[in-house]
C-alpha cells in the first residue's frame, strides 16, 4: 500500500538517505527509532508536509510524491495530537468531513459512530483544553479516521501517556486497525510498543532504514549492534570468532567462550564480531547442569545484583570479569534460591547466541 523508493531529503545537517520501505495493504507497520533518527520527518514526507528531494512515494497505485497532503488519502495523528483548540471534540472529529462537504445527516452519523468507537461520545461538546492525554489521543484518532483514509499515519501516538493508558490505547489501536483494515504506519521509539501493535516493523536511525522484519525478528535477530542496543539486547559483547565444525566459537574479553550457530553466508565467520544474547534466553541454575544439548555453553559466575522489574526479575552475574544478564519470571526465580554473591551457572543455547554484521 505504501511504497517508498530511494527517498532523500535534507533538513539542515540532517538527511533522510536512500530510504526504501514497503508497507503492505492492511498491515500494521511500526517504524522504530531513537529521537532524532528521522522517523517523524519520514512520516511528514508520506503526509506531504515535506517535499522530498529525490525518490518516490506511492500510496496504492498512485505516485503521491508531488501531490498536496489533502490529495494523498492519509490520516495523520501527530505526536502532540494537534487538536484544534477552538473547536469542540465533535467539531474536531467532523472537521475533515465538513471539508469534504458530506451531507449533514451522513456527517452526524459518521461522527457519532466514530466517537462511540473510540469512546469519546460523552465528551462531544467539550473543548480539547479540558481533556486528558488519553482522551485527546482518542479524539485525534477519530478525527484522522473520519475521512476514511487509505493509510493511517501515527506519530508516537502513545508516547505522552502513562504506562497503563499506553497499554490500553495500544490494544485499542490494534483492535481498531483489525476492524477497519486501514493500513497503519505507527512511529515509536519504544520497542515494547512495537511488540504490542506491529505485524512488521523497521528500525531507522541516522536517517537510514537499518532493518525490516517482524517485531520478533528485530528483537531476537538485530542486524547490527546499534539495533541490538536500541532494542535493549541486554548482553551485547564483542568476541573473536572462529569456525569449529557446525559451530562458531566466540571468545569474549576475560576468556569466556560461547558457542553460536555457524553463520549464514553474509555474516562474518572469522575475526572480531559483535554478538548478543537476550537475558530471557540465559538459563540459570544453582548447580552445574549435568546434561546439556549439543551447542549449549555453560558458564560459571557470581550473582552481582538482583532487580525486580515487576513482571520479571533481572539477575546480573559476573563471569570472568564479564557482566552477563539473565531475566526470568518470579516463580522461576523463587525456585532458584538466588542470593547476591552466591555462585551460579549460566546455560546458553547456540541458537540463542546471535552474531551481527557490525
Amino acid at each position, binding site marked *: 500500500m505504501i511504497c517508498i523508493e530511494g527517498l532523500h531529503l535534507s533538513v539542515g545537517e540532517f538527511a533522510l538517505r536512500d530510504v526504501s520501505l514497503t508497507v503492505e495493504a492492511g498491515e500494521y507497520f511500526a517504524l522504530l527509532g531513537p529521537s532524532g533518527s528521522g522517523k517523524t520527518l519520514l512520516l*511528514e514526507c508520506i*503526509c*506531504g*508536509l515535506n517535499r522530498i528531494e529525490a525518490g518516490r512515494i506511492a500510496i496504492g497505485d498512485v505516485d503521491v510524491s508531488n501531490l*498536496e*497532503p*489533502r490529495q*494523498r488519502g*492519509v*490520516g*495523520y495523528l*501527530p505526536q*502532540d495530537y*494537534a487538536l*484544534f*483548540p*477552538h*473547536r*469542540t471534540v*465533535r*467539531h474536531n472529529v*467532523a*472537521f*475533515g468531513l465538513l*471539508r*469534504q462537504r458530506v451531507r*449533514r445527516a451522513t*456527517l*452526524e452519523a459518521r*461522527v457519532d459512530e466514530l466517537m462511540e468507537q473510540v469512546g469519546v461520545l460523552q465528551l462531544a*461538546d467539550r*473543548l480539547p*483544553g479540558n481533556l486528558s492525554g488519553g482522551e485527546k489521543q482518542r479524539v485525534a484518532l477519530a*478525527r*484522522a479516521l*473520519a*475521512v476514511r483514509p487509505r493509510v493511517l499515519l501515527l506519530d508516537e501516538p502513545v508516547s505522552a501517556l502513562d504506562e497503563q493508558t499506553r497499554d490500553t490505547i495500544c490494544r485499542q489501536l490494534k483492535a481498531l486497525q483489525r476492524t477497519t483494515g486501514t493500513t497503519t504506519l505507527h512511529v515509536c521509539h519504544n520497542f515494547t510498543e512495537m511488540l504490542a501493535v506491529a505485524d512488521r516493523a523497521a528500525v531507522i536511525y541516522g536517517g537510514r532504514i537499518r532493518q525490516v522484519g517482524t517485531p520478533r525478528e528485530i528483537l531476537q535477530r538485530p542486524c547490527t549492534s546499534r539495533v541490538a542496543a536500541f532494542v535493549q539486547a541486554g548482553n551485547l559483547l564483542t568476541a573473536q570468532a572462529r569456525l569449529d565444525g557446525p559451530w562458531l566459537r566466540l571468545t569474549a574479553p576475560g576468556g569466556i567462550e560461547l558457542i553460536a550457530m555457524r553463520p549464514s553466508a553474509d555474516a562474518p565467520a572469522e575475526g572480531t564480531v559483535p554478538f548478543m544474547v537476550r537475558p530471557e534466553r540465559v538459563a540459570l541454575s544453582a548447580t552445574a547442569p549435568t546434561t546439556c544439548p549439543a551447542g549449549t555453553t555453560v558458564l560459571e559466575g557470581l550473582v552481582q545484583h538482583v532487580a525486580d522489574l515487576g513482571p520479571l526479575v533481572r539477575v546480573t552475574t559476573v563471569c570472568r570479569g564479564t557482566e552477563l544478564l539473565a531475566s526470568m519470571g518470579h516463580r522461576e526465580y523463587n525456585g532458584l534460591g538466588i542470593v547476591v554473591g552466591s555462585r551460579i551457572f549460566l546455560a546458553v543455547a547456540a541458537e540463542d547466541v546471535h552474531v551481527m554484521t557490525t
Partner: protein
Amino acid sequence: MNLQRTAPLHSGAGVPVCGRGGRLFAASTLSVVALFVAGWLTLIFNDVVYTAREAIKETRVTETDASHPAAVPGLPPSQTLFQKLVSPEITSALWLSLWTSAVTVVIGLGFAIPMGYALSRYRFPGHTFIDSVVDLPILLPPLVIGLSLLVFFQTAPGRLIEDLGLKFVFQKKGIILCQFLDSASFGIRAVKLAFDGVDPRLEHVAMTLGCGRAGAFFHVALPLARRGIVVGGILIWTRAFGIFGPLMVFVGAVRMRTEVLPTTIYLEQSVGRIEVALAVALLMIALATVALVTIRLVGLERQ
C-alpha cells in the same frame, strides 16, 4: 448538531501570593501600576477641573452678555464651551477623525493579516531585513512620514499617481495615507506575534484533512490568531486616531476640510482657547476609552 466554534476566554489566572517576600514583591509591582495610572488620572482630572471651571465662568459671562442693556445689536453673543464643542468645525473634525481612523483600521488589517502570516510562516532571503523595515515607522518620528510623503508626491511617480486622479496632498485621502503609514507597523507586529503563537502543526493536520494551504489558514490559523488581530486593530486605531505631526505637514490644517481632532486641539490652543483644546482632548479620551473597552469586550472576551 452543536458545532461550537469558539473557546471561552482564559483570563489570566490569579497567582497566589504567599509569604512576606511574595506579598512584598506583589506590592512593589502593583505600586508601579498604581503610580502610572494615578499619574495619568491626575492629569486628566486636572484637565476636567480646568475645563469645567472655564465652562462655568463662560456660562455666567454669556448670561450677563445676553441680559446686558449695553449689548451691541448685530454682534454674535459669546458662546458657551458646549456651544463651541458642537460648532460645525469641531463636529466636522470629530466625524473626520472617526471615519478616517476606521477606514485606516480596515486597510491596516488588510495589510497586517497577510503580512503577519507571511513573516511568521515563511523564511526567505532578506527576511530579517524586511522584518526590520516593517518596524521602521515605530522608531521614526511621525513627522518624517509627512515630510517623506510630501517629497514623494513632488517626484515623478508621485505626480503620476496624482495625474491618475488619486490626489493625496492636502486631501482627506492624505489623512488616511498618513494614518496608515504611521500605524500599520503596530498592527503588523501584533498580528505576526499572534500567528507565531499558533502551532503550524495544527495547519498541517488541517491540510491532511482536506484543506489546502489557504483553507488551513482560514479554518485554523485565522480563528486562533483572532485575539492578536483584535489587538492589532486596536493599536492601529489608537495610533491613527491620535496622529497629528504628519498631517500638519502633508494635509495641512484646513478647517472643515482636513481638520481632525488632534488638529483642532492644536488650532484652538494656538489662538489661546485652552479650555476648548482641553475639552476636545477630553472628548478624544472619552471616545478612545469607550472604543477600547467595547473592542476588548466584544473582540477579546468572546474568545
